């Protein structure tokens, strides 16, 4: 089925999220929609899926104009969507999830589970998915859960499949498998829209690439274009994707973690007997698929989580049982992975956010009173230094773009006297230009002698920054490898396998 979007325009108040966007996706084609966060990709797809109504423009399927009032109608017309966050019910089986919403029934409304099972098996077999219809979804690995989403879409005879940032939660190997599946679907005649901001994936799988910036189509690119060319199109100016950095000159061990063990609220060990050290003047990257204990590790290090066993020393001082305040005061800078939830108070001004973790004393507080003059001068200087794009320091932090919000957090932590920087997903949801800037600042911190621990699920980021790399899997350290370890090695380790010398076949 051919999908055509003509002149789609969608505004939210004064903001034009989509500005006369034209897009044609032929059957048997993978069409990549490339753009930064906030470029309007998701808005466009929500219009297509009937979740939003366009202000103007039309959607055509096989040259017939469609009007979708909701996702139900879009599904009926043959549009399927695989969301970034799976819409599955964990305690249901695969078959039950697949039939959810259009349950086949027999006499008197009895569910026809057998039919659903058969449907899963049939689609599974057609594409070699290897999914057991009776498995509980919660027991399945993330990559397989995603296949269930695909099966769900296909079981409704989707002829146009939209993948919205599908690789965010996958290991490199799972990503490769997904790419293979996408190619297979394409060869079977499905029209595929693939939304992403990861350049490597685009070049690997796309037949055509449309780049969106600020709600407008800014150009088409061929899959043979270089990363720099694509990034330049996306950002609208030249971008330097590689961070220039000298080899590290590591000093004495600064952060020493010994046998750290953390349990979640159910008693499950989420960080299991982890030991490593970070030396002054080096960047250690923590790689791993999301949800393998990295979050809990960083939270335990800064005192936000109860440590079950093990010790954490900072320059010889035992900080294991320190409260957050004491950890920060000991010279630890912390960039939390979710800036909206943990890093910023969105209703606070930029200035207030810049002193958020320094509200306990000089220079911003004297005798219990806020020093507003000092804060204003500091904020003006910091906004300037960190290139935070804002009309004023009195602007609410929540009104900034994601990249600028993140810069506020980074600026706050790097403008303190710190000995150790813990940066969790420092560039998640941040535009390419800001990524470049934040990476540079992190490397500068390292060069000034700060020990840095970077946690990221983006391999590119880990490889760009790390002097050494720790790979975590299910709460344990799989191994510690040099910063120039290959993608394949890291990928295998992220899946929990210790590569025997050379990189093996994907799991």
């Amino acid at each position: 089925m051919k999908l055509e979007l003509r002149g789609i325009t969608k505004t939210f108040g004064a903001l034009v999220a989509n500005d006369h966007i034209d897009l044609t996706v032929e059957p048997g084609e993978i069409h990549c929609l490339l753009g930064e966060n906030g470029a309007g990709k998701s808005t466009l797809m929500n219009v297509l899926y009937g979740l939003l109504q366009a202000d103007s423009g039309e959607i055509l399927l096989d040259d017939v104009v469609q009007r979708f009032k909701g996702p139900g109608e879009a599904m009926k017309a043959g549009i399927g969507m695989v969301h970034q966050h799976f819409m599955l019910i964990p305690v249901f089986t695969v078959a039950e999830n697949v039939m959810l919403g259009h349950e086949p029934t027999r006499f008197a409304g009895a569910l026809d589970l057998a039919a659903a099972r058969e449907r899963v098996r049939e689609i599974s077999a057609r594409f070699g998915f290897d999914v057991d219809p009776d498995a509980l979804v919660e027991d399945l690995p993330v990559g397989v859960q995603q296949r269930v989403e695909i099966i769900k879409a296909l079981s409704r005879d989707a002829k146009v499949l939209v993948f919205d940032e599908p690789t965010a939660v996958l290991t490199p190997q799972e990503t490769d498998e997904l790419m293979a599946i996408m190619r297979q679907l394409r060869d079977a005649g499905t029209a595929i829209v693939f939304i992403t901001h990861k350049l490597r994936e685009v070049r690997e799988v796309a037949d055509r690439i449309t780049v969106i910036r600020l709600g407008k189509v800014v150009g088409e690119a061929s899959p043979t274009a270089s990363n720099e060319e694509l990034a330049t199109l996306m950002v609208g100016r030249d971008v330097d994707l590689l961070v220039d950095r000298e080899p590290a000159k590591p000093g004495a061990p600064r952060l020493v973690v010994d046998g750290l063990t953390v349990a979640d609220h159910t008693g499950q060990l989420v960080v299991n007997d982890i030991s490593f050290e970070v030396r002054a003047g080096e960047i250690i990257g923590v790689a791993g698929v999301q949800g393998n204990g990295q979050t809990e590790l960083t939270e335990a290090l800064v005192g936000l989580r109860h440590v079950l066993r093990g010790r954490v020393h900072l320059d010889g001082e035992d900080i294991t049982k320190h409260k957050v305040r004491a950890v920060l005061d000991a010279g630890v800078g912390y960039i939390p992975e979710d800036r909206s939830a943990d890093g910023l108070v969105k209703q606070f001004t930029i200035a207030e956010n810049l002193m958020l973790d320094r509200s306990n004393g000089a220079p911003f507080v004297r005798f219990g009173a806020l020093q507003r003059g000092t804060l204003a001068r500091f904020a003006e200087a910091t906004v300037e230094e960190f290139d935070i794009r804002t009309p004023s320091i009195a602007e609410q932090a929540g009104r900034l773009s994601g990249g600028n919000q993140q810069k506020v957090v980074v600026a706050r932590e790097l403008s303190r006297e710190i000995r150790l920087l813990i940066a969790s997903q420092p560039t998640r949801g941040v535009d390419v230009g800001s990524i470049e800037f934040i990476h540079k600042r992190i490397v500068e911190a390292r060069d000034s002698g700060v020990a840095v621990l970077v946690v990221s699920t983006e391999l590119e980021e880990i490889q760009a920054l790390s002097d050494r790399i720790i790979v975590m899997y299910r709460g344990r350290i799989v191994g510690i490898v040099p910063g120039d370890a290959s993608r394949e090695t890291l990928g295998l380790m992220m899946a929990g396998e210790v590569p025997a010398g050379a990189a093996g076949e994907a799991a």
Partner: protein
Amino acid sequence: MTATMPAPSPEQPTAQTPEEAQRGRWRQALREITLGGPLIGLIAVVLAMLVGSILIAATDPKVAATAGYFFSRPGDTFGAIWESISGAYTAFFKGAIYNFSRPDFASGIKPFTETLTFATPLIAAGLGVGLTFRAGLFNIGGRGQMLLGSAIGGWIAFAAPLPVGLHPVVVVIVGMAAGAFWAGIAGVLKAYTGAHEVIVTIMLNYVGYYLVFWMLSTPGLLQAPGSNNPKSPPMAETAVFPPLLGDQYNLHVGFLLSIAAVVVVWWILERSSLGFAFRAVGLNPRAAQTAGINTKRITIIAMCMSGALLGLAGVQQVLGTVTTGFSAGIDAGIGFDAITVALLGRSNPWGILAAGVLFGAFKAGGYAMQAAEGVQIDIVTVVQALIVLFLAAPPLIRAMFRLPEPGAKRKAVKA
């Protein structure tokens, strides 16, 4: 680097589980109800008074009588409606602001001083409730905290032999401490066990009420000697708040305490590091915790300060409003009215001052309307309730039916 414009991104919903979104929705609604702008408060008051006017007209027997022959002489009905409403509001004005039937200014202004007298405990109590709103808490236990403040403070006031200047000071301090203690129980339970402060404070209202009632009925505790009624002896002359503008007015120096409390609470919230922590915890407790702010400590301090302000309101009642001895009804519903005052004042100290005066006027004028025009005093209560409804309903309805905030997506940077 060229001066490229940053992407004006629509608010990107970050990774969120459905439950988090769910919780966020209600938090957001609560925040909007308690912290919205001043304009909404004004509109709510105007709308509520409009509905109040309709009720005044509808309950007037003269209007009902003329409505019987509406179709033969509609003018009579409209005339009656006009008379009813304008009469009521004239009486209200004369009862709450300025009585122009009096010969001189000194007696004409008396109604306004009555308004301020009624407003005095409302302002203090409203500040207490508003303070918890700013810290993301909801103190519904004003009644219990006021009663404890009245009872313990009142006990010092009638039983302790202290000199003139010192006596009221000690009463105020002890009363505030009693209120702080009572609210602090809820604060500690919230911080260390997660017991919700709304439920705990409501239950402490009952505990406080029956505790005070028991003390008032027990000879040797608070009960007046030689009496069988659950009522205390009158306050000692040395303890009573002196009148502020001379003996012809009821306004007492307790009003100055309320004004001082407005300034102090404003300073704490807007200019102190403690207030910074309150606001951070109120708006985003997780970010506050991540930034090293001890949210448990803040919860307890906020509840104690709130209770102290309600204790102050309780002391103002026994030393200013009713100095002839108090019963277990000394709180006069102020602990609950304070919630409305704090909501209407948008949890801002100056807003609470204005809302407190308005509600003081409702009380003073309400009695005058009843006396002069026979308007049911309950209509004033209805108007107060409608204010809350108009303030709270839009965000609540949005949360219940998952409607988007109007213009919410417009929040993009224009750098």
